[in-house]
Every structure is written in C-alpha cells, then in structure tokens.
C-alpha cells in the first residue's frame, strides 16, 4: 500500500522546523514505525526517531500522530491509509525536542528520580526467602507496574504545560507503585513528599493521561489513589485535599454539597474573606443557597450508611478509587462484535496449573 506521512522535522543545527511530506510503498501489516523505517532507509537517512523492541514494551517510540501521543510500533497504518488520511507526525509534547521526533527525556527521568522510586523494605540484608504477600494485595499496583516509561502521558499532560515543575502522571503513577506496595515501609514519608508543591493536587483531572497511555496504566487513577491514601493518613494540608474532604463532610451531614462553606473550608477563612465581593455577586444572582438553616436531604441516612460501608470495607484509601479503567485486558469483546468495559478486576498470577499437564 502507498503510505503518505507529514513529519515535523527539526534541525538542531539551524533550529528550523519544517513540515515535510513523505510517501513510501509499505506492506499492509505495516505500523507507523515500519513506515518511518522505510522513509529512513529509502528516502532520507537523516530522519531521527527512537525505536527498539517494536512490541510495545521498551517504551522508546513515543511520538505524536495528529497531535496525540502514540507508540509508533502500536499504530497500524492500514485503516488510516484506507481512509485516505495523511497523518501529521511530530515529537512528543512537554519535553524539549532534540532532533525531528527525538525529545530530551532528562526532565522526565528527573521527575521519576524525585519520587524515590525504589522499594524501601525497612531493612538492608536479605535474611529469609520471599515475603509472603497475597496476589490480591499485589493486584493493587498491577496497573502501575505495567508502565513502560514511554512518556506519552507526560506529552499530553495539561498541568505540565502550565507548570513544567508538576511531577506529572508518569512519576506519580510510579509513586503509587510504591505507596500501594504492601512491602514498602516508607508510605507516609512518600505521601508527605508527593503532597508538596507541584505534587498530586496540581493535577487538573483532564484525564488525557488515561486516554493516551498505550499500556492501560491509567496514571490519573494512580494520582487519585495517592490523594485518597494521603487523606486516609491525615495528610490534608493542601487545598485539594481540604476540598475533597468537604465533599465527604457535606454528604455525611446533609446529603448535599454545602457549597457556601466550600470556599472557606478549602481555602481558609482569610482567603475566603478576600473573595467576599465575588460571593456577594453570586448571592445577588441566586447562585449561593443560604447556609442556614442547612438543607438536609430526606434520605441523608443513606449517605451516612454508604460512608460507613466504605470505612468498613477499607475502601477509604486507594481501594476506593475505580475510575478510568482503560487497561486493554479489561476490554471484553461481546457477541455483538463490539467491546464492553467494566468487567471484573483482572488478577494476574495466582496459583499455577499443576505440573505435567
């Protein structure tokens, strides 16, 4: 098949960018990476991009196709060619471009290192066999352990775009990989660290990281899990945590969101007073319900019962977070030929089949 691509070239010597179109003849099974290889071989040997495993595990070939981060080895070209579309290929976002499709990954790795990304078992010498941990306990970090560090999520992160120092989805997912690990002894210190400036509460929840992760890691979910674990451990100094806590408090006491008190509860009284004029404007337009007497929902007891249930089941921390669930393993094909989501949690491992069958 004849495949056409437009590629944003970047020449590091001149500093010039140029959108160039290429056309090559490629086999029908070709993925984007195969097409780039054909262009490099047959048309222009100076085209630069990273590659290695070509099977979605090494994380080298992150780049953008039509503005969205992809792994080049995962994108099949045939459906795109059939549509008559000529995709635009460019380097990943939020990282400095070195040449053509190659970005400088050092800012990415710097943030990974900032997470203290190694297990702290609380001892130095190994004196026993493996630790006893159930598969169920390990499943808590299953998705985060799938991360291949390709940088696709960081490329798409809206918060990093506005605050380059934001730790970002990949690093925070790596953080949860240790916070959620029952063998790690450093959970509270980690949560303290991740709660500092540029930490978990700076995520804007745009969900682009979940959407674009090629491995189903769902980094936004990991960030939510870190938030829930922080509050569970009483680390709630950030406005984000206070904001979340007030939702819970509101629901328990009235069954509704007590909006008028939300700002002072989140930002503190002083900060709230500074916004008095804005609040009065809202009041004038009927946007603020009067706080007294509090409006209590008829079935508020149900909200309270739900809260108790969550506590009883130990789902007040990370286990309570069930959100994006983009992991491919969770996509079930139906008889109708489509796919449905939200099947049971996957549980890799468990006991192996008996020998010699």
């Amino acid at each position: 098949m004849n495949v056409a691509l437009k590629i944003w070239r970047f020449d590091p010597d001149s500093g010039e960018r140029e959108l160039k179109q290429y056309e090559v003849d490629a086999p029908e099974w070709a993925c984007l990476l195969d097409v780039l290889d054909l262009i490099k071989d047959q048309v222009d040997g100076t085209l630069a991009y990273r590659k290695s495993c070509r099977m979605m595990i090494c994380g080298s070939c992150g780049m953008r196709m039509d503005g969205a981060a992809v792994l080049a080895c995962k994108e099949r070209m045939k459906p795109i060619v059939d549509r008559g579309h000529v995709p635009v290929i460019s380097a990943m976002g939020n990282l400095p471009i070195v040449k053509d499709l190659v970005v400088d990954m050092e800012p990415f790795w710097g943030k990974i290192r900032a997470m203290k990304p190694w297990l702290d078992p609380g001892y130095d010498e190994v004196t026993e066999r493996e630790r006893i941990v159930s598969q169920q306990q390990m499943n808590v970090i299953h998705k985060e352990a799938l991360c291949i560090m390709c940088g696709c999520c960081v490329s798409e992160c809206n918060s990093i775009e506005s605050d380059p120092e934001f730790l970002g989805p990949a690093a925070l997912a790596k953080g949860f990989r240790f916070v959620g690990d029952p063998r790690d002894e450093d959970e509270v210190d980690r949560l303290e660290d991740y709660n500092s400036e540029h930490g978990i509460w700076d995520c804007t929840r745009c969900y682009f990281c979940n959407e674009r992760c090629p491995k189903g890691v769902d980094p936004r979910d990991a960030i939510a899990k870190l938030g829930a674990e922080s509050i569970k451990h009483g680390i709630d100094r950030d406005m984000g945590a206070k904001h979340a806590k007030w939702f819970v408090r509101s629901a328990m006491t009235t069954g509704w969101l007590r909006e008028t008190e939300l700002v002072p509860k989140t930002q503190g009284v002083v900060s709230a007073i500074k916004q008095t004029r804005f609040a009065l404007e809202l009041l004038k337009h009927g946007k603020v319900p009067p706080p007294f007497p509090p409006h209590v929902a008829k079935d508020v007891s149900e909200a309270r019962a739900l809260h108790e249930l969550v506590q009883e089941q130990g789902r007040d921390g990370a286990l309570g977070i069930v959100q994006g669930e983009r992991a491919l393993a969770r996509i079930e094909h139906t008889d109708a030929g489509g796919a449905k989501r939200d099947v049971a949690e996957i549980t890799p491992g468990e006991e192996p089949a008996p020998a010699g069958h």
Partner: protein
Amino acid sequence: MRAAIEAHDAGADVALISKIHPVRSHSGAAEGGINAALGNASEDDPEKHAFDTVKGSDYLGDQDAIEVLCNEAPDDVYQLEHWGAVFSRTEDGRIAQRPFGAAGEPRTAYAADITGHVLVHVLYEQLMKRELQVYEEWFAWQLVIDDDRCQGVIAWDLLNGGLKTIGAKTVILTTGGAGRLYTGTTNAYACTGDGMAMALRVGVALKDMEMMQFHPTTLAPTGVLITEGCRGEGAYLLNAEGERFLKRYAPNAMELASRDVISRAEQTEIDEGRGIDGNVLLDLRHLGAEKINERLHGTRELSMVFAGVDPIHEPIPVRPGAHYHMGGVDTDLDGKTTLEGLYAAGECACVSVHGANRLGGNALMETITYGKRSGRHAAEWALTHTTVAVPPAVEADAERTLKKLLDRTKGERPWKIRDELAETMHENFGVFRREQDMRKQGELVDALRERYKRVVVDDKGDVFNNDLTQALELEFLLELADCMIVSGLARKESRGAHARPYDYPERDDEHYMKHTIVTWVDGQPQLDWAPVRVTKWEPMERTY
C-alpha cells in the same frame, strides 16, 4: 544492570554505557519467567533444575556452569523479590511458578507475562537508589586494549555526537544477542551483537556461535514473541488439519517439549504442507477468557495488535523465529574472558549454560546470576589493580576510521545489505541446515562484507545520528554471520539448534561433544574446538 549493582556494592566505582536507555533493554521483552528451584509449586531442587538444563542443552552445556546457575538461582530470585519485583503469587502468598518446556517441575517464577519488564524496572530502580552513573545513548563501538589488558571503551555519543573514551580497569559486556541477523526474529532492533563483535575484534574467542535458537511461537511476519507461558498454561499447537501434531514428535511432553524439538516439528509440518500460510496454530481458546486475561493479557494484547487475532476466540498463527543466541563471548564461571580486564555476561556471553539449546526461563536467570558473579569479580579485580591507560593513538585510530566512513559520499546505503543478510540467513542458516546452503551463505556474506566496505552514511550530523550507528551495527552483524557459518559447517552432526537432517541427522558425541571456538585472524574467522566440562551427567538419548 545486575552486574553494575553488584560491582558497586562490592566497592567499585561503576558506570554503565548503553546505546538505549537501560529500561529499553530487550530483557524487558522476556515474558514467561525466570527459572529457579524454589519449590513453591512442587517438590523441586537445584539438581533437578541442573539435569533438565544439561539435557535441554543436548549435552553441550558446561555442567559446572549449569550447577553454579541452578544452585545460586533461588537466592538470586529472593534478592529480586526483596528489591521489589512484582512477582505473581501462589495462594499461600509465595512466588508463583509455572510449568515450562522441558522442565521436570513447574519451576518458572513469573510476573503474569511481563516478567522481563518487571525485572528490568526493578533493577533500574536499584540503579537509581545507588545513583549509579549511566551514559545513556552512548553507542559502545570499540574496546581499548593496551598492555594486553582491556582498559576502556570508545563510544559514539548519540545525543551530542562525537567519540567519547572511557577508561576503566575492567569492562563487562552485557549487550545481549544478535537476533537482527534474521528477518523473522523476536529480537529488538537493538540486538545487533555489539559486544560479541567488539570482543571478537580484539582477539577474544566466541564459543558455539552456530547455536541460534528458534522460538516455536512467533507472530508472522515480524517475529513478535508469543510467550512459552501460553503452553505452560496449557495451550495446544495445531496444524492445518486441527491435529495436535506434537504427538508424532514428542508424545510425552507434547507442547512442553524443548524449543528446538518443537521448532523442528513446526517447520516439518509447514514444509510438508500441513501449515497455514507458513504458520501453525497456537490454540488458547480452551483456557477460557478468565485465565487468558489473568495470566496472558500481554499476549492477548500483542495478538490483537500485531495479528488481528483475539486468542479468546481464535487460535494464533505462529511459526519459528530467531530468538536467542546460545553462543557468545567465551567466559569462565566469573564471567572473565581470555583477555585480562574483559568480562561478559548474559546473552552476549557463553559460559556455557545453554549449550545447544536453551530452556525457556533460563535466560533471565543467567543474566541475574552471571551478571552478579561477573560484577563481583570485575570489582575485585579493579579494586586490586591501580592503573588505567588509554593510549592517544587508539583514540586517533578510531577517529580516523569513523571519519573515513562519514566522509564517503558515493556508494550504497547500508539497508539493502542489512535486509539481504537477514533474509538469506533465514533461508540458509535457519531451523534446518544443509551443507550446500551454509556454503552458499558463506559466499553471500563475504560478498555483502565487500559491499559494506563502500557503504555510505546519509546523515553527516552530530545530533542523534543513528544512521551512523546503524551502519556500525551492520558491520558487527556481518562479522558474526561469518563466525556462525564457519562453526556451523564444522559441526557435522545434529545437536540442539544445529539440525542437519539431510546429511548428519544424529548427534555424534564421540566427535562433536565439544564447543566450537572462533577467533578473528586477519579479518576472517578461525575455527578451533574446546572440550565440554562434564561433572556428573553422561550424555543420554534425548527424548521428550
């Protein structure tokens, strides 16, 4: 990375040089698991592991090396677990173990079907913890030799351009395999045998280079790996008639026979017209959606993306593909080569644990155990010797050679040579080997090496010039192909991966229970032999 950690912990000043970021290493693509006699799924012990490995090697493995591996494996796996490796678990919370080909017990510890990925990342975490220096995206090209010692490495800095020299009292080669010699290979683009070729060029011997393993389950057309874990979990191999054809080749072990046996069986079925478009079928359907999603979800993802097949509903078309080089740089039990200061470990080395055929799950284990041993020994040597000298002439020579290549503007670009090499290796030096094909391949490789002398690099720039490094990789591959052919022609028997059904169909222990040894003399391979080290297992007939 395992070697670096051990050397650092032994007190040495360590740096890693890698042409790709360490977590991009192809060990991360290992899926099925790592073999150690933990005994978590059955009664098992290192001696059983050793016997299975000796038998699997078709009695070409060095038995002392195998015993070291199997004895140290359990503690080495526990160490990985304590570092945080996310292993799958048994019901009682221990590391889960699954059955694998040619293993008498379920011995393969695993993390779903991403075991290699999990281990690569846990090792990188330990590197970060120790703040070890990594020269990322430095392409190691030449070894520095002075005073009959290896004293460093000359590398091309991909990000910034230019040759960089690092002096070192000891150098450990851990560059992996050379699967890129073949079109259909499970190996990454990075697997171009760099360490083997670098060692060869400085006079270090390569061992058993004819022994290239073909993995029975790779996806057409590119050779993406489908893990042996599928068969470990109970998958069937079927021919076009829907027959479990292994009953005619390995009636007892069936799908869990060793890889060489199954690859030959598949190729025979395909050659005799019982394949489907050059493939046989790997059927997982009877395992059920739940088991597939739990333990083989990565496999399902690969099948769906690369073959358009959902293994829950359809069998996966698979065929043999080049997978693992049992041969490599000849080392002793501490990873030491014949050259003072130079070590090798992992796939690029040949200690020899795998002999003529490697068992699934033993490669990851070898990287860990022998990585550790070579790291420890290299550190000890470095700490007891003081001087390092990189003669300026060595650097100047390297600069000159590179300049000659970069200055050339007229000639052929490397890719056609690369593709012709890989296609013809597949045809003439594949699962089955014939004398005349191997001879023809020798002539072809010589012709390609002639063409390579006039090769032109398109990119003349400094920044991320992998057009240049890919040309240098091709030169490595061409030289290794020559070594393989010379060794293959000399081994006039069928043993493990070296199958000559048309002229020497039997194993010949009397004449060939010995290693091929190749050294580089005046730009050509020179063949020699070395004895197999036998400790307690005399060769027996090998059936599964």
